[in-house]
């Protein structure tokens, strides 16, 4: 069966270098400047909001004694989840030898790192006294030393997110080294020194490549369990408590699949913008978009199944508090959030079963935006509706986010897009060295090599002499 080539337009090796380095070397376009200005403006709004709430205290949020976690933790879970697609694309798809990943893995990994940066802000500002954030680490202190509680999922989070961030960053940087060397060799002056410093003297030696490929496989194998472990640990923040709607064994897989779902939606959103703005239509092709859409249908269906399983478990448990929590989620005062979630996460991805929708990039873009919205609401529904109405009716409240909280959420998007735009401007968005290995010319020749025939030798072999030999063997 013949599939469409991964890279369109009959690109040669030198074209890949020129196409990917071109936008970096030509300098920012007007469109980039406008987008960057907008992102920085949002970021500044967030900085002001965070500065204000640190100065005044988290009483500026809409929290009360009943609802102690709301926007902040929703945003934290949302951003950590976004990151998962980058790791899945770069690690799991590498191990499964899915070659289509080469066009998107660099930016997906960048997205992971920036999303985890955004996520990290929220638990820290939630502490109220963020200057004491280092207390989460087990260091020899003057309070005993009193160690951190290793039995607490909140502490597991520190280690899970810390490891996730570090390994993702290392993996990303190792992947960048060959491409930084390419940029170094094309640049001059200060840029050459800067790219050269970060390229670490990479020369493309076969001995280095051999070790490099081994190291990348190992890092992928290490990052793969991280895809599963990080959001599982995040889910235990909820699942180990006794709040109805949180205390569920389904939470780890439910959170992991939701994370992959939301992350792929975000990757697709970014890629659809990038291919237009950066002129990467030949590299991020409809085939890549379709492959990602199929992942969205698959993970979206599992998310839908998880919602049904939650409802079934609540009914089957016979526990009145569990039953009430789910009725309240769907029909209580915050019921509209639940239906936004169902519409965006369960119904919308099912549209991608249709090839006509999968191949219409504008429709796919709208679908991915809706999924991003839906996944944010999913976390909001899980966290807030469970807390608003728990065991004691006398403690019930209604949570209302404040302007400061909205501004902080907007600011996290500002940070994300600022970092992403800086990445587009200064670093190669497409992993050149990897894309060069999947060009059609490379595939064709590879077959010859694996047959034990070297191309020139095969061409120069006397054909008439070979034919009788083949005949004699029969």
């Amino acid at each position, binding site marked *: 069966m013949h599939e469409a080539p991964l890279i369109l337009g009959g690109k040669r090796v030198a074209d890949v270098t020129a196409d990917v380095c071109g936008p970096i070397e030509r300098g920012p376009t007007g469109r980039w400047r406008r987008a960057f200005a907008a992102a920085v403006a949002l970021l500044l709004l967030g900085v002001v909001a965070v500065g204000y709430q640190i100065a005044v205290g988290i009483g500026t949020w809409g929290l009360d004694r009943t609802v102690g976690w709301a926007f902040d933790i929703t945003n934290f879970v949302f951003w950590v989840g976004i990151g998962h697609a980058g790791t899945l694309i770069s690690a799991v798809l590498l191990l499964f030898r899915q070659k289509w990943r080469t066009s998107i893995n660099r930016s997906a990994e960048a997205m992971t790192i920036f999303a985890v940066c955004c996520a990290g802000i929220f638990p820290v500002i939630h502490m109220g006294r963020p200057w004491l954030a280092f207390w989460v680490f087990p260091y020899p202190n003057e309070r005993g030393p009193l160690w951190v509680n290793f039995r607490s999922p909140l502490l597991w989070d520190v280690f899970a997110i810390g490891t996730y961030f*570090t*390994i993702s960053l290392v993996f990303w940087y190792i992947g960048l080294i060959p491409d930084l060397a390419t940029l170094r*060799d094309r640049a001059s002056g200060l840029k050459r020194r800067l790219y050269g410093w970060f390229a670490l003297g990479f*020369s*493309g030696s076969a001995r280095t490549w051999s070790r490099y490929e*081994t190291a990348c496989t190992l890092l992928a194998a290490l990052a793969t*369990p991280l895809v599963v472990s990080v959001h599982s640990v995040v889910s235990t923040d909820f699942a180990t408590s006794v709040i109805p709607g949180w205390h569920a064994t389904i939470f780890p897989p439910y959170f992991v699949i939701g994370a992959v779902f939301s992350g792929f939606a975000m990757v697709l959103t970014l890629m659809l913008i990038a291919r237009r703005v950066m002129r990467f239509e030949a590299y991020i092709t409809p085939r890549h978009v379709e492959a990602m859409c199929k992942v969205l249908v698959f993970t979206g269906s599992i998310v839908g199944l998880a919602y049904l399983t939650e409802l079934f478990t609540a009914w089957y448990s016979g526990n009145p508090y569990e039953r009430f929590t789910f009725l309240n989620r769907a029909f209580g005062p915050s019921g509209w959030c639940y239906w936004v979630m169902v519409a965006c996460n369960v119904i919308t991805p099912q549209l991608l079963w249709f090839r006509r929708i999968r191949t219409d990039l504008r429709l796919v873009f709208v679908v991915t935006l809706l999924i991003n919205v839906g996944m944010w609401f999913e976390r909001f529904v899980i966290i807030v509706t469970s807390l608003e109405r728990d065991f004691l009716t006398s403690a019930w409240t209604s949570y209302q986010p404040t302007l400061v909280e909205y501004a902080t959420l907007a600011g996290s998007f500002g940070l994300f897009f600022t970092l992403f735009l800086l990445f587009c401007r200064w670093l190669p968005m497409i992993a050149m060295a990897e894309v060069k290995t999947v060009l059609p010319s490379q595939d064709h020749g590879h077959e010859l090599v*694996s047959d034990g025939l*070297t191309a020139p030798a095969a061409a120069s072999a006397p054909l008439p002499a070979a034919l009788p030999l083949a005949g004699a063997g029969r």
Partner: protein
Amino acid sequence: MSRRLHLGIFTDAHALVAAARACRSRGIPIRDAYTPHPVHGLDEAMALRPSRLPIACFVGGLAGLVAALAFQYWASAQDWPIDVGGKPFHSWPAFVPVAFELMVLCAGLLTALLLLVRSRLLPGAASVAPCERVSDDRYALVVEERDARLPADAIAALLAEHGAIERRELPSATETEDAP
């Protein structure tokens, strides 16, 4: 004894692999090859030994795992045990997540560090590639001239036969890449 080094530059990865095989079959030692991307079959053509990084990865992971379990046990059961309703101090299942994360962290960091050190990839290091375009679209092969039976012109002819677009002798001092 200083050996003379010969450089052949190719425009195609398959030609490079073919040339590397031909050189090895004639007994011409290959010093190194420089390519813009990992080339399938080149390890084999150059008879490179597989990397030992997996051992480092395993050792790093084991060290992280043991250190994390030991520290959690010491902190929670030895140094400052806290009685929570008579629950065991050494509650090892609760220590699994942190131990797992530190295992992955140490394994990954050690692998990455040894990759860089072993390949001499250090900040400020200069590239030893004999031609800058190997980071773009050229494939370079550097071979040694070992004995009189294979003189320079025979090597040049062999490289040309496999499609080298450029051949020249290298000053041997520029070659600093380590042995496998």
